[in-house]
């Protein structure tokens, strides 16, 4: 099992859980396993079967955009990090 780390803005889709354990040998398989248990996440993380362009996906500390994308291999001790941009800060900077 590898671990998917759920960003704060998506935790409402995981019952508040910060991590979800998944199986799969690639990012794609791991995410399919994630979506099987948390179906709402599919639309938040992917667009037309591809990763959404506003969510970065890392395996450990490496951005899969610079590896093999959804085909990037995932090992049992790896952590997959889903990372959308966060805005938060001073309201007055609008």
């Amino acid at each position, binding site marked *: 099992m590898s671990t998917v*780390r759920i*960003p*704060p*803005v*998506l935790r409402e889709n995981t019952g508040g859980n*910060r991590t979800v354990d998944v199986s799969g040998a690639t990012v794609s398989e791991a995410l399919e396993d994630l979506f099987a248990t948390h179906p709402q996440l599919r639309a*938040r993380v992917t667009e037309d079967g591809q990763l*959404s*362009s*506003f*969510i*970065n996906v*890392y395996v450990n*500390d*490496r*951005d899969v955009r*610079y590896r093999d994308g959804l085909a990037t291999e995932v090992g049992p001790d790896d952590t997959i*990090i889903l*990372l*959308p*941009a*966060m*805005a*938060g*800060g*001073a*309201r*007055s*900077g*609008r």
Partner: protein
Amino acid sequence: MTDQPSPAFREVDAADAVRLADEGFHVIDVREQSEWDGGHVAGATLLPLADVVGRISEVVPDRDAPILLHCEVGGRSARAAASLVRLGYTNVVSMKAPVTQWKDRGGRWEEPVQLLTSGQQRRYARQVLIPEIGQEGQRKLLDAKVLLIGAGGLGSPTALYLAASGVGTIGLVDDDVVEESNLQRQVLHGVDRLGMRKVDSAELTIRGLNPGTTVVKHTERMAADNVERLIEPYDVIVDGTDNFDTRYVLNDAAVRLRKPVVHGSIYRWDGQVTTFVPFAGPCYRCMYPTQPPAELAPACSVAGVLGVLPGIVGLMQANEVFKLLLGVGETLAGRLLMFDAMGTTFDEVRIWRDPACPACGEGVSAESPPRPTVPGA
């Protein structure tokens, strides 16, 4: 006093001493460090009287080399000269005259380099002690100009610590007023400031903390039509805004003008920090090429935020600023640091320069002159 005859060394007046120095005598100043710091003979070596016997051989190994000793008036240098003769030095001269006469007789003199006033030395004593800072580093901080985008949650701790540490000029971009719901985290402000402009409140607080810091107030929102004017005068930009439009506008202008941006963002229990140094590392567009939809990016006013979180993240931003200004250490350029307050964990991921980045990718050269702003572009 001993019964030994006074060992043989010569005593000379200031005019002769200046002449001997010009002829190539090693000039040894046997005063204390504090006296030396007040100005000293150019090219002299400081060797306080207590150290002369122990260290002279490192400075002048050749016992037949000509040595000119001096102190403040000629007493300590005569004692040092006698000691050197006893050690076997054969050509020792002591200046028997006030050192002020050395200057009057045209001797070469180095005035002290005053990087800090005595008041600054007292105020910043604890950080001047740090080898990577010292008086030179403190001078850099005093001469530095840092722009904070937002005088709210993230800007508050950053401004407080930058000002306390002596950053000379702090610019604040904020057009908002202090509201009661701000006070849970925006520690620049207080209940007596409700309804006051945040830049005015921030100025009052900073002035109370450090009157030496100049506060420049920009009571406006950062946008495409003012961003370059706002950031141009500053050395480092600290980004603490809450919306993506501003972040992209700031990023593109900062890349054009080659300004480093220290990025912080917060959401409930989570914070992110990184540093963008144009062309040396990735920029904001390299990391997030596309703006997320609004529901994935709620502001603090909608989502809520833990009070200490902007404190922690804002101070990590301040730490990045110090390293950028001092030119020391490793910044977060190329790394995104993530703090999870719920688990008290730090994680980091690597971020890369994107060759296809429209702001700093291939086709945009670091060497090319900064591009002018195209309004509406």
